[in-house]
């Protein structure tokens, strides 16, 4: 089922009695979720991700805008008739019920011609339990299970009535790193096997990038960019998106464009054809540095960390906005850690420049074209 959001806005009344100002949790949000895809909804804490899910599932009513499932307008429908499954941030499994009872719960609510017999319900429950691999845990209580197992039960409960849309609110945030990795693969598998249109909320960009067909980056309730993970990474529309995606994060410098050349700390580091003279922010991805003893860009070397395949070079630069510059180069290019300085050339398609006021992307030569082509 495809989901269409049209100008979706949600305002919460202010709790503060003095100022009448409203909290705009979601602001004029429009996009289309293609059928059967897994969408990663990504943004920092408090940007309105949970609110967004609550709007889609109907727990919250939008202030304005419309929500369509396929061709049906569901904006004014209550949650129970929308046919969505929601996995809560903290799972919200009923603690007094066993896994089986938890999974049966949604089925027991069915009325009318959807009503099932006991045997049908059991069969259905066992089917989803198998899908999420918790068949051996059916008689346990939620408190007797690990976080990952609880999460799978929560997914099973959301899946058991075969929702048209599955919504997951930061389902992996309570898991440790290893389990998180494992469960997100499993999530991907379950989604592929069921083909249910899925919206997956997270503030972890890596998580979103690794399993989503498409990511949506939002900031303070506003949609900033949407697209395939790699596209968004390679072609961010503004500084926020550029900073938000990627580990290690992008390195941001204060710089200046003069005569179609980018200057950082007085050094002429890159040609930026087509950009007028102005101060800019320059964002350089960690993999955008090429080690070169005669390179144009000079940094003070702090540390060299060899991590298997790659070498991470940590350095500083007076114009850098962050504390350190992190650059990733392949391990063959050994760096002498005792040196004071390290010099780089830059890969033009890994360098993005942004307006200092609006923080919007300023496109130039090579990477200026990419956005339009894609």
């Amino acid at each position, binding site marked *: 089922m495809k989901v269409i959001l049209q100008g979706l806005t949600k305002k919460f009344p202010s709790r503060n009695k003095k100022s009448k100002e409203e909290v705009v949790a979601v602001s004029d949000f429009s996009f289309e979720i293609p059928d059967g895809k897994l969408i990663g909804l990504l943004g920092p804490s408090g940007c309105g991700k949970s609110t967004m899910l609550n709007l889609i*599932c*109907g*727990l919250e009513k939008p202030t304005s805008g419309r929500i369509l499932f396929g061709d049906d307008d569901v904006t004014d429908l*209550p*949650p*129970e*008739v929308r046919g*969505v*499954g*929601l996995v*809560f941030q*903290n799972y*919200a499994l*009923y*603690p*007094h019920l066993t896994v089986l009872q938890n999974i049966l*719960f*949604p089925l027991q*609510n*069915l*009325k009318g011609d959807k009503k099932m017999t006991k045997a049908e319900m059991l069969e259905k429950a066992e089917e989803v339990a198998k899908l999420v691999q918790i068949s051996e845990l059916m008689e346990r209580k939620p408190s007797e299970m690990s976080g990952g197992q609880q999460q799978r039960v929560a997914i099973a*409960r959301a899946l058991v*009535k075969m929702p048209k849309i599955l919504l997951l609110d930061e389902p992996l945030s309570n898991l440790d790193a290893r389990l998180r990795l494992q469960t997100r693969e499993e999530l991907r598998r379950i989604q592929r096997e069921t083909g249910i249109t899925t919206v997956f909320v997270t503030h972890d960009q890596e998580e979103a990038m690794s399993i989503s067909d498409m990511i949506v980056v939002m900031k303070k309730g506003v949609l900033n960019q949407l697209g395939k993970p790699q596209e968004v990474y390679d072609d961010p529309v503004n500084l926020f998106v550029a900073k938000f995606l990627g580990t290690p994060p992008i390195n941001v410098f204060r710089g200046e464009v003069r005569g179609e050349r980018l200057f950082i700390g007085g050094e002429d580091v890159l040609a930026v054809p087509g950009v007028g003279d102005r101060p800019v922010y320059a964002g350089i991805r960690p993999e955008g540095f090429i080690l070169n003893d005669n390179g144009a860009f000079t940094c003070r070397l702090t540390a060299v960390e060899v991590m298997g395949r790659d070498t991470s070079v940590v350095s500083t630069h007076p114009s850098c906005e962050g504390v350190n510059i992190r650059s990733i180069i392949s391990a063959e290019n050994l760096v002498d850690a005792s040196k004071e300085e390290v010099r780089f050339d830059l890969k033009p398609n890994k360098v993005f420049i942004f307006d200092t006021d609006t923080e919007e992307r300023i496109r130039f030569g090579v990477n200026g074209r990419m956005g339009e082509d894609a």
Partner: protein
Amino acid sequence: MKKSNFKAWLYLLPAVLFLGFFMVYPLADVLVYSFEEGYNSASQTFMGVGTYNYRYVLHDPYFLQAVKNTFILVIITVPVSTGLALLISLGLNSIKKLKELYQTVYFLPYVTNTLAVGLVFMILFKKTAYTDGMVNLLINLFGGKSVDFIDGPYWAKMFVLCFYTVWVVLPFKILILTSALASVKQDYYNAAKIDGTSKWRMFTRITLPMISPMLFYLIITGFIGAFKAYSDAVALFGTNLNAAKMNTIVGYVYDMLYGDSGGYPSYASAAALILFAIVFTITVVNLMISKKQVHY
């Protein structure tokens, strides 16, 4: 004895001594008294050991009346007050405006003195030469006939006693239940809502199990409290409860000790132990039921 053990006992000593003197010793003494036949408190002598005290108490019409009264009180007030408290708490929990105000209003009786409340109830219900009392005026308004609730028929007096008891125990129960209800996370209800759960099913399958430990606590303490009722009856009907046929078991024990016809510690002890046996049995039954029904 290990050294660390010795230290632990040393720390416990004050409490052990205190409890020993003021709790264990008197309890044991009660047990002893209850089996000493013909005990004379002036000469501190007794004639023999046996179950005569129990047989006497169990055949005493005043005691039987007290048992009957107590049971009626328990059977009516525990379910009614708990149910009512649950209803009111659910109401309080679902309103937003003036919630604090209502919570305060409902809590007020808790901090009011029992005897003062009893007097107020008496004024509301009592029929005197000058006035029939507020409640009777109301009854008259609706075309009913005046009833003397304080000195009148048994059922009327019982009604006042139950009404009063419910009214007195309600605030505490409401307090406990509103906080229990508030502690049930909204997420559970949201999850249930998405699955199309009916309001009633949400209540029986989510709310009730989630607050069941608190509910159970209230029922147990409610039973015990109601079995120990005494001051309420005194506040309403005065000290001569036997004459008013409104005595309770604890009232009977008290009368046997200090009342006008008192001075019989043996009978009082026997009655107290019978009460203990009743409360103990009921609490055990409660605990057994709760094993199945309460979700911790």
